[in-house]
């Protein structure tokens, strides 16, 4: 039954509405699930209306379009990536809460329907990986990396904007699936044949398929962009071995993106051929082989793990060094360890399916390869601890996340070695032990790193610090909430409880699932703490301002410019002669020097390409999901017109006159002279204007 006939709405019917079941079959289960799903849909609609309303109310449409959506400034694109990540984090956290709540009352029952629960764990995983973690790290690298290497932008600014547009399109697809349901129930891995037409003919898998495809296309381009930037745009004298460690991790991540993302694009593309054009790549019959999908997926999936974790390692390296007032211990070893991890990450994918029946020798080889990754990772942990050794450690909010990371991540490393052992993995594969392990790597590893980086670089991006009080509350809640929520899952996994289970029948599990719910509540409070911190900091932004731009006595070049930085970053591109460039300049009193002369600066001009391709990509994906072929054609035409139209644009750059640059720079230099420098004792107080007391003999004051 279609509303207006197939040509217009494809296969969309009234069944797509989340309260349809509840109205048609008002059983208790349907009403509970219908209310939850409709509430979620309402939240999406209300949030969209609120945002659009506020923009209209304050008359900011022009600002939004001209200063943000069409901007190719790496800093603005980075911030927009992070906004997407935080919005999607909010949704996926609420989903996690519902799953924990279900399992806390899941002994012989619960309140969620199996279908609803399946959608929850699928969207939670898909969103957290592709629309929270990836945009978050992409955003932070985008914001920080060009400044750290002394560049004015990335190598391909327009492609950067297109990457953003495609990620936003994928995220929007995931969001609209709440209103026009359902989403897939096949898990974030989407293994066929469960995700093939025979088992799942509905639009859910297609939503998942196209959201993933948009995200992987975006990340492939991002990887190319970052790698080329790091190779080609470094300032004079910034040799590879003088780059801050964060740039090294960004480079490794970019290389992994370039080689790791395409296998997933191919896998989802082939699955789409199966689903749309009656191919049989991964079907159960007619020669299909689902093992090929699983290999392709993990040829992406394992490098992906390191795509996620390496930038966080880079952030921790910056934070330990900065907040210990000391050089990073073992820089060269850390670079080697990072590269070793990046290379080894391509050699271990099989450990995701030790149980598929291959020969024991193959399993053993991949098990040992997996354990090898533990060596450079362990070295890194000790390098960070040695960075604190004989330093002057300030336990700021980013540092609290970092120290929590050191301890908790080690536990995750232990469980990783356990899972790498095939004979043990046979028991705990697909169990909650595995779920506990990868959350142990991704929450204290990736997410703490991102939140630490967010707190660390926020004053750089917006010109004022985040007020620490709610920051500490949020950080402690994250740490304790994580332990309460996920340590029980280790126990449950050892007790044989599978992942993705709606309900269970053994009362032994119950205390653990209740504890996990308490942890989830605490994590929700931690997220609330982040919102409170942001809200209060915006209110107190005048007293928290750090206009000079160096609130933490930083060591790399991004701290050598005002906060927020000018769009061209550097009035004159710096010349580098050492590692920890800015710290070295401060040590020798050569920081804040006025250049001999200023030049015109040429920057890329704004373009609507990102918005156009993102919008067209969304229309195509949505049309494909619901078989609205006219919409697919419309989207495809829009892509073609945009690409061809771009070829006719002649004005691709704009120039900032030297006089403007000089005025801005001199104004800032005067502010430097008028500002009172502070010691690290006043770091988190309003006295901090972003100007530290100069070091004496390398010693931070």
């Amino acid at each position, binding site marked *: 039954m279609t509303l207006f006939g197939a040509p217009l709405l494809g296969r969309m019917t009234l069944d797509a509405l989340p309260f349809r079941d509840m109205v048609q079959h008002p059983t208790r289960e349907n009403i509970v699930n219908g209310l939850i799903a409709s509430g979620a849909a309402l939240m999406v609609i209300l949030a969209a209306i609120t945002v659009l309303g506020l923009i209209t109310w304050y008359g900011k449409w022009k600002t939004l379009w001209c200063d943000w959506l069409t901007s190719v400034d790496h800093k603005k694109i980075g911030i927009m990536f992070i906004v997407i990540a935080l919005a999607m984090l909010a949704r996926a956290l609420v989903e996690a809460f519902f799953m924990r709540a279900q399992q806390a009352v899941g002994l012989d029952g619960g309140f969620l329907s199996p279908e609803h629960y399946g959608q929850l764990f699928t969207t939670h995983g898909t969103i957290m990986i592709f629309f929270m973690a990836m945009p978050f790290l992409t955003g932070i690298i985008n914001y920080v990396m060009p400044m750290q290497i002394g560049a004015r932008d990335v190598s391909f600014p327009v492609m950067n904007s297109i990457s953003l547009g495609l990620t936003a399109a994928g995220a929007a697809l995931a969001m609209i699936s709440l209103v026009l349901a359902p989403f897939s129930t096949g898990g974030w891995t989407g*293994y066929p*044949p*469960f995700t093939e037409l025979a*088992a799942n003919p509905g639009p859910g898998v297609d939503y998942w398929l196209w959201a993933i495809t948009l995200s992987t296309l975006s990340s492939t381009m991002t990887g190319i962009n970052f790698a080329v930037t790091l190779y080609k745009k470094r300032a004079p004298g910034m040799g590879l071995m003088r780059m801050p460690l964060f740039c090294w991790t960004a480079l490794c991540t970019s290389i992994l993106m370039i080689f790791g993302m395409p296998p997933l694009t191919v896998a989802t593309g082939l699955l789409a051929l199966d689903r749309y054009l009656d191919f049989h790549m991964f079907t*159960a019959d007619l020669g299909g082989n*689902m093992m090929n999908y699983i290999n392709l997926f993990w040829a992406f999936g394992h490098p992906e793990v390191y795509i996620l974790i390496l930038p966080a390692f880079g952030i921790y390296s910056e934070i330990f060094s900065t907040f210990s*007032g*000391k*050089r990073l*211990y*073992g820089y060269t*070893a850390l670079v080697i360890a990072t590269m070793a991890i990046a290379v080894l990450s391509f050699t271990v994918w099989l450990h995701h399916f030790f*149980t*598929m*029946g*291959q*020969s*024991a020798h193959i399993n053993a080889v991949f098990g*040992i390869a997996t*354990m*090898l990754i533990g*060596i450079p990772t362990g*070295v890194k942990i*000790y390098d960070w601890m*040695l960075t*604190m050794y*004989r*330093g*002057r*450690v300030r*336990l700021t909010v980013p*540092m609290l996340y970092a*120290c929590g990371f050191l*301890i908790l991540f*080690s536990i995750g*490393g*232990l469980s990783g070695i*356990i899972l*790498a*052992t095939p*004979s*043990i993995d*046979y*028991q705990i*594969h*697909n*169990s909650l032990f595995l779920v506990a392990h990868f959350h142990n790597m991704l929450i204290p590893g990736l997410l703490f790193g991102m939140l630490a980086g967010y707190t660390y670089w926020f004053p750089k991006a917006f010109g004022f610090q985040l007020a620490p009080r709610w920051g500490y509350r949020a950080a402690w809640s994250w740490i304790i909430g994580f332990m309460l929520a996920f340590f029980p899952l280790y*126990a449950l996994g050892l*007790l*044989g409880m*599978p*992942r993705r289970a709606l309900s269970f029948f*053994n*009362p*032994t599990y119950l*205390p653990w699932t209740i504890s996990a719910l308490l942890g989830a509540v605490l994590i929700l409070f931690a997220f609330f703490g982040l919102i409170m911190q942001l809200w209060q900091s915006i209110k107190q932004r005048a007293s928290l301002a750090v206009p000079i731009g160096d609130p933490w006595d930083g060591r790399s070049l991004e701290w050598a410019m005002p906060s927020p930085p000018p769009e061209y970053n550097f009035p004159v591109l710096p010349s580098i002669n050492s590692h920890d460039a800015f710290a070295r300049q401060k040590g020798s009193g050569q920081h804040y020097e006025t250049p001999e002369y200023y030049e015109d600066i040429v920057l890329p001009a704004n373009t609507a390409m990102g918005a156009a391709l993102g919008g067209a990509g969304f229309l195509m994906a949505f049309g494909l999901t619901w078989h609205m072929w006219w919409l697919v054609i419309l989207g495809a035409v829009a892509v073609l017109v945009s690409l061809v139209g771009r070829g006719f644009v002649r004005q691709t750059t704009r120039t900032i006159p030297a006089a403007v640059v000089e005025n801005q720079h001199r104004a800032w230099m005067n502010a430097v002279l008028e500002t009172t420098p502070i010691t*690290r*004792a006043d770091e988190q107080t309003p006295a901090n204007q972003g100007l530290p007391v100069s070091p004496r003999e*390398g010693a*931070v004051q």
Partner: protein
Amino acid sequence: MPHPEEHGLQVPYSLPALLGMIIDVRDHNVLKVFSSPAGRSRFGAIVSCLALLALSGCSSAPGFLWPNGPVADAQRQHLWLVIALVMIVVLPVFILTPWLVWRYRYKSQATYRPRWSFSLWVDVLIWGVPVVIVALLSVALWKNTINLDPYKPIASDKPPLRIQVIGLDWKWLFIYPDHHIATLGQLVIPVDRPVSFTLTSATVMQSFIVPALGGQIDVMNRMVTRLNLMADHTGEFMGRNMQYNGEGFYAQQFTTRAVSDSEFATFIDQVTTQGQPLNAHAWGVLKQQNNWKDVARILNDGLPPPAPMVAFSQLPASLFQDVARHQPIAWNGSTATDTSGKDTSHHDRTPAQ
């Protein structure tokens, strides 16, 4: 109770024992307290309970930490070995991180060396220790992965019991090809006799496990995988599917009963005499998306099942092969013993032809 060493599955979980294993020391006198069955199980049980603080008591807890077969026992021992060895690297992090933050806090008068960033000896230590640990773990991993290969038959003086497993939405069908019977919802095996499973799926991918005995192995459409297990205690153990396959996934459990030889013979007799035919009609019910209790109800004309399982006594001999090969099921074929499951050779890992 047969000693696990008889099956070549023994894993010493203390560090000296591991070193002994690596340098191939035959005389394990000092380790007797660990390797004697009583000492081992007591030690393991205490550690397991302490580690898990299972509130409802250890004896009723499922999972391989309370093993009832040599494979699960070896897996549990390997787990403790890994934890013990990796703790050498992990414990210092727990202790040193808070200490460093405190000792070198900004306001302390501790030594401050802002430019110190490398020491060769420290680097040798922090690279060397993990290398040694991973090397030791690799040896244990290699030996155990090969010893505990699910395809490897378990050494015993008794011939293995052959069982064919067909994964369905959302239940498991257990075929006893040598006895021409099948069950649903309950797997009954004789204690102290190896069991050799061959597995395939009549639907999407699943994963088969009995945690107290060992496993798991993936079960896939148009493919045949293998698993060898043995129970060394009688009892009832939970078994289930671990790979999500839809709405009924969470309830895709079954009871594994390890029973004495005489009880097993009784079970075979009962099923042979009382079981219902597995014909095209019954197969149609099995192919529906439901759990074994639904099947029992449907096949029992809506009444609750008389036993905690569904028993079949007449079934086509080639049912398993037909399902695995995607060919029409030979409903009129004889119920003679099939031939394909007999081969327990090692590497039948290709898709079924």
